[in-house]
């Protein structure tokens, strides 16, 4: 088991990468190397469009602190298609895809680190094991996308919001940011409505319903949940698709070391 606190002290920029998943499959050398690939870090104070859809990138962005959304524009509106927590190598997609099909928008205050694509070329050439771990990390996003598709296909607005809360809380826990009663988040009501495809009025009503039924209280930058099991049951949420220590986990076997 990884000592999560020690890991983020030793690797301040990349210590949360794959935490709760395959971080323990990374060798010490790979961890040191990944940390050294961060060319530059910066704090971004306000919600910012870090990368616009269609732009060509020469570096990929690691989310070190704070939150981000992947968004698509359409009909003059923004639609949020996924959410990111610290430790996500959010913009690694841009390395394999060359240009992004979506925007990367920050939420609240974030710290990011930039990895030049030339360094990733080196990994692809010389370090197939680390390359596979990078590949793995991008496919976690695809698994989350599929779950979101299903959530949108089957859930009502309050349940969609509950599903988002359940997912974010679990993901924060996986990367060493667990809290007992909920989580702090800079997400706004309008971010939430963009994440669940509902109008502002619908979202507002759904948030009130969640509070009234005692499922979750979203207020002033905090989501408070009295009973995790009740939240997850209400949202029809099971964490398997996050590829943490649950049913779908990558169980490493001798001879199949990833």
């Amino acid at each position, binding site marked *: 088991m990884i000592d999560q606190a020690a890991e983020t002290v030793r690797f301040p920029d990349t210590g949360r990468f794959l935490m709760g998943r395959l971080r323990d499959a990374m060798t010490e050398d790979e961890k040191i190397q990944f940390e050294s690939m961060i060319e530059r870090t910066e704090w971004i104070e306000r919600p910012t469009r870090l990368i616009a859809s269609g732009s060509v990138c020469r570096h990929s962005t690691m989310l070190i602190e704070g939150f981000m959304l992947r968004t698509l524009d359409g009909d003059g509106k923004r639609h949020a298609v996924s959410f990111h927590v610290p430790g996500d190598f959010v913009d690694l997609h841009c390395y394999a895809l060359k240009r992004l*099909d979506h925007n990367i928008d920050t939420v609240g205050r974030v710290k990011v680190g930039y990895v030049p694509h030339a360094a990733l070329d080196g990994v692809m050439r010389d370090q*197939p094991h680390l390359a596979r771990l990078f590949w793995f990390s991008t496919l976690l996003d695809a698994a989350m996308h599929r779950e979101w598709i299903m959530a949108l296909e089957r859930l009502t607005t309050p349940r969609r919001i509950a599903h988002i809360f359940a997912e974010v809380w679990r993901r924060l826990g996986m990367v060493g940011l667990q809290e007992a009663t909920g989580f702090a988040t800079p997400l706004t009501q309008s971010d939430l409505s*963009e994440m669940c495809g509902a109008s502002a009025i619908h979202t507002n009503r759904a948030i009130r319903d969640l509070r009234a039924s005692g499922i979750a209280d979203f207020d002033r930058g905090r989501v408070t949940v009295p009973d995790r099991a009740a939240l997850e049951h209400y949202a029809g949420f099971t964490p398997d698709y996050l590829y943490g220590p649950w049913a779908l986990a990558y169980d490493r076997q001798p001879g199949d070391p990833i």
Partner: protein
Amino acid sequence: MDAAQVFSTFPLTGDFLAGRLRDQFAVEELHILEGMMAGPRCLADGERLIARGQTAVQATILIDGFMIDRIIRDGKRFIVGLHVPGDFVDLHGFALKHLDHDIVAAGPVRIAQVGRDRLREVTQARPAMARALWFATLLDAAINRQWIRNLEALDAPQRIAHLYAELHHRLTLIGRNATRTLRTPFTQTDLADMCGVSAIHANRAVARLRELGLGEIRRGDLYIADWAALERYAGFDPAYLYGAAAPSR
């Protein structure tokens, strides 16, 4: 190389990344890719290739036909993805080991497969191929994102229109473009499960597309005169499909 030559030389993998990165492959690598696949083999309509949670010991390319990504939850079926020829349908399983979804044939299909160990050897020896396979899986993710956005932003008739516009475009990229008829094996229930609506809603949405003169869907086949009109109606922009000629926005 014209289409006939491609298929006599690469009968199993000739559609892989066609219209996208295929032209950038070294010929030697195209041959390695073709040579590592075993097949073809057929699956019947509805046959499941791999189940959620099962260890992915093979990676599978779709040669002919359509396949769907399916998740069963609380006894109900949800369709979360769709595959056309040239797609490595279960390649996510190579990196994730276990898939979060089932992959099922929609209509009869032909596939070819490569074992996990062999695939690891090839990607290890050939970084350019590893990168192309990675690209292919991220293309799936880009399509997923568009589906999320569609579910957030579009009504049922627009979702169905978008689905057909996407299929048309994906088939065109691999040189299998339909002009006035796009044939699919999809039932009305399949369409409903792809769009997150009831069968009754899907029925009404299909009727709406007919009323608007955008196209007529019968037994999954779309009869259409004006693709541009359908694309406009659906707000379809093919940039997310990463076609080689697609302009960046």
